[in-house]
């Protein structure tokens, strides 16, 4: 097991750079959306409705990816939608990760009654179907961005807790932990200084996956109109609207869908890529 690892040679990873590039562009777009977006994402123009993307006949250069049935610019809406998608991904992903990983580390390392309590809680949590759970939560909390974030955190912390608990448990059984104790390191310090660095690669992979999931969840909830107010451009609501006019204007559906797909894919690839690139054990 041990010696094989050093033989695994991995290339610097096209996937790391590709996914980082895409997400980097998206972040830039989200941050500077008002400067970059060619149009006001909310501006309607019924005479300029359903303009095709730039390469098709009848396109308008001011609407590079076309316009929707209300004449709103698809590209501008995607760029502005990135603000919400990335905001949710970042906040919900990070909170979920902190809570879930923290509880997982405590349960796996200290075992005993903390583990009993946390593990039972995870078991009970997992018995709820997540989609119903989410819709129920939103119904109680009301729609809005913070409700979505809370729903994601409340539902998904178990994903981290389960995996990180198992990982912390197996790391805790390693002799380097006993060795740190022989050296006189305090228990909590062992958790932070010895075990956490060994669990961190897994946490990073889970975190980026979770960010992708958060993007999807936000899109689904906007798709079913449970997200934020409808006049805010979100990828999910764009997809929902695009679905209605798929035969007249495919671009309204396809561009946000592709953006969503690339973003989720990039998040998952980013985690794996980071792990391959920066983990000394794999390098």
């Amino acid at each position, binding site marked *: 097991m041990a010696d094989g690892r050093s033989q695994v040679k991995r290339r610097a990873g096209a996937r790391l750079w590709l996914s980082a590039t895409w997400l980097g562009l998206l972040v830039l777009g989200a941050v500077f959306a008002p400067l970059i977006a060619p149009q006001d994402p909310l501006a309607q123009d019924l005479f300029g409705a359903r303009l095709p993307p730039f390469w098709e006949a009848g396109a308008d250069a001011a609407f590079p990816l076309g316009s929707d049935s209300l004449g709103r610019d698809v590209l501008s809406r995607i760029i502005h939608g990135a603000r919400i998608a990335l905001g949710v991904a970042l906040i919900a992903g990070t909170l979920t990760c902190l809570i879930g990983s923290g509880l997982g580390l405590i349960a796996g390392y200290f075992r005993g009654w903390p583990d009993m309590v946390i593990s039972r809680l995870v078991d009970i949590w997992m018995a709820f179907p997540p989609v119903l759970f989410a819709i129920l939560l939103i119904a109680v909390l009301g729609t809005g961005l913070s409700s979505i974030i809370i729903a994601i955190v409340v539902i998904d912390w178990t994903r981290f807790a389960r995996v990180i608990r198992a990982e912390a448990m197996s790391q805790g059984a390693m002799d380097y932990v006993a*060795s740190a104790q022989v050296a006189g*390191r305090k228990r909590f310090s062992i958790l932070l200084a010895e075990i956490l660095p*060994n669990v961190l690669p897994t946490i990073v992979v889970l975190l980026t996956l979770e960010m992708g999931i958060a993007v999807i969840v936000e899109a689904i909830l906007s798709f079913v109109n449970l997200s934020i107010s409808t006049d805010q451009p979100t990828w999910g609501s764009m997809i929902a609207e695009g679905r209605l006019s798929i035969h007249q204007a495919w671009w309204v559906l396809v561009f946000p869908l592709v953006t969503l797909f690339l973003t989720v894919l990039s998040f998952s690839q980013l985690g794996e890529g980071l792990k391959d690139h920066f983990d*000394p054990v794999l390098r």
Partner: protein
Amino acid sequence: MSDTPIYDIENLHLSFPDMAHKPLLGPAPRIEILKGISLTIPRGDVVGIVGGSGSGKSTLGRAMIRLLEPDSGSIRFEGQDITHLGEDALRPLRRRFQMIFQDPMSSLNPRRTVGAIIAGPLRLQGFDRVSQRVDQALDHVGLPRAFRKRYPHELSGGQRQRVGIARAIATEPDFILADEIVSGLDVSSQAQVLNLLEQLVRELGLTLAFISHDLSVIRRLCRHTLVLHLGEVVEYRETAALFEAPQAAYTRELLDAIPLPDLKQVWA
């Protein structure tokens, strides 16, 4: 040097909870692993601990360096009773008894460099000139100083075990427990590590407890030998005498069971 033995252990009992037979409610029954062990290790001695698998060798060793807390009996380290000391009270003592582990891949944190691994106990114990001491420890175990920057997976098995030894000797301990430290190594690295250990014991005046399955290694390295069987001391005598004329039936069994090419051969 005083006459106080490094270790004075009396009637040591230690048990683990038996989770396999835990009733639904209430505490698990306990399996007794160490059943009243007494032994004395004088300063500068090298004691071999042998016995069948599951006889409690590792448990005894881990109790001695207080990775485990005994149920009853007493462990005196240089006269001080450490049987039930808490982790905080043990911390200042930890510099003085160290351990070398069986599997260096598991006992070296894979995400730390060799330098950081050896420096760890030094920092925790508040040593000065940590960097110099790390270099010294590497010199002692015959590893190039450039290895400080390497990660454990970038070393061979024998080199990793040397790092484990370097970490143990860096704090200048009085006592080192070595639990099966060569069993994972090939024959030539085994010989090198054993030679190194022999040399360090001589140079640093260490007291060593050496747990092993390999009686030929025990015979070569250890002045005294302790034979454990099912958590009890069967025999504890000078190694030469023990191999020459085993007293207990179990010792004879052990000696017979393990093929030694030539028991009478004198080791170089």
